[in-house]
């Protein structure tokens, strides 16, 4: 079951990413992006990260892609809906990307992950956040753990000795909150309505 679901979500994520690369139409690119991001959320659920998967669906698929589609609506008037890349550039990029992908995949394949994991566990302690049996039966959700970790308390690592306990995330949470506020104010300031120039410049 897990294998079937992984194949389904993984193949649709990879296919969506390929569709984003290969299609030239902006609106279709947004559609393939939705496919890829939604399948990524499915992969997160499969990995036992239920809160991250739900956040992915809500913020990425529900927020960021809608923002991108608004951008497409506001900027693509007639001839700019499809801006073609020349086939030579595309072939060049595909060859380079294929080489890059081959490098990454061979690197991933060559590492013996189990051995490194056991060595790391022996050196630093810790372990997988979630028991794998609990994921299959759906007994444990990560929402409470992530919430307390963002507030600075780590109940998931409370069993470890005092000097090995991981830190909470209260300060990064505050920093990212202020960052998001500043960014949204700045974006609203940048995108405010202005008089459009009559002549196109440059080009």
């Amino acid at each position, binding site marked *: 079951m*897990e*294998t079937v679901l*992984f194949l389904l979500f*993984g193949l649709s994520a*990879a296919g969506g990413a390929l569709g*984003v*690369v290969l299609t030239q139409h*902006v609106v279709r*690119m*947004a559609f393939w992006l939705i496919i*890829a991001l939604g399948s*990524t959320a499915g*992969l*997160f659920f499969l*990995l036992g*990260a239920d809160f*991250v998967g739900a956040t*992915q669906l809500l913020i*990425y698929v529900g927020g*960021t892609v809608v923002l*991108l589609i*608004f*951008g*497409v609506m*506001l*900027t*693509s008037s007639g001839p700019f809906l499809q*801006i*073609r*890349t020349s086939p030579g550039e*595309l072939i060049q990029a595909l060859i*380079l*990307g294929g080489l890059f*992908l081959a490098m*990454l*995949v061979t690197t*991933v*394949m060559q590492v013996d*992950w189990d051995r490194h*994991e056991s060595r*790391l*566990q022996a050196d630093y302690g810790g372990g*997988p*956040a979630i028991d794998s049996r609990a994921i*299959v039966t759906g007994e444990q959700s*990560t929402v409470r753990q*992530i919430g307390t*970790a*963002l507030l600075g308390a*780590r109940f*998931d690592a409370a069993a470890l000795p005092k000097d090995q306990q991981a830190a909470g*995330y209260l300060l*990064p949470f505050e920093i*990212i909150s202020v960052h*998001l506020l500043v*960014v949204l104010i700045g974006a609203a300031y*940048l995108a405010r309505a202005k008089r459009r*120039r009559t002549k*196109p410049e*440059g080009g």
Partner: protein
Amino acid sequence: MQSIGLTGYLGVGAILFVCGVICMATKRNGIGVLMGVELVLNGANINFVAFSRFGTLGLDGQIAALFVIVLAAAEAAVALAIALNFYNNHLSIDVDRGNELKG
């Protein structure tokens, strides 16, 4: 029941990352470049969550993935505002037109 393991998830993450890089390099539409950035961030996110599940990263990987999602949303907002300004100035979203600083 560990049939997939870490390698499969890392492979999917690598595919998304490479597709995003190709998308950023080849698209001439500014919004298309933004979509490439989103794909790259998602590939990195899959790696974070996969290591949080199979490695010793624990819950930290999932929290890093959450921060990445929030930063991606912020980046999309700012980049969209910049794209709208670019469109107001150039009446086009083609990134090859933004060459005033070319030496």
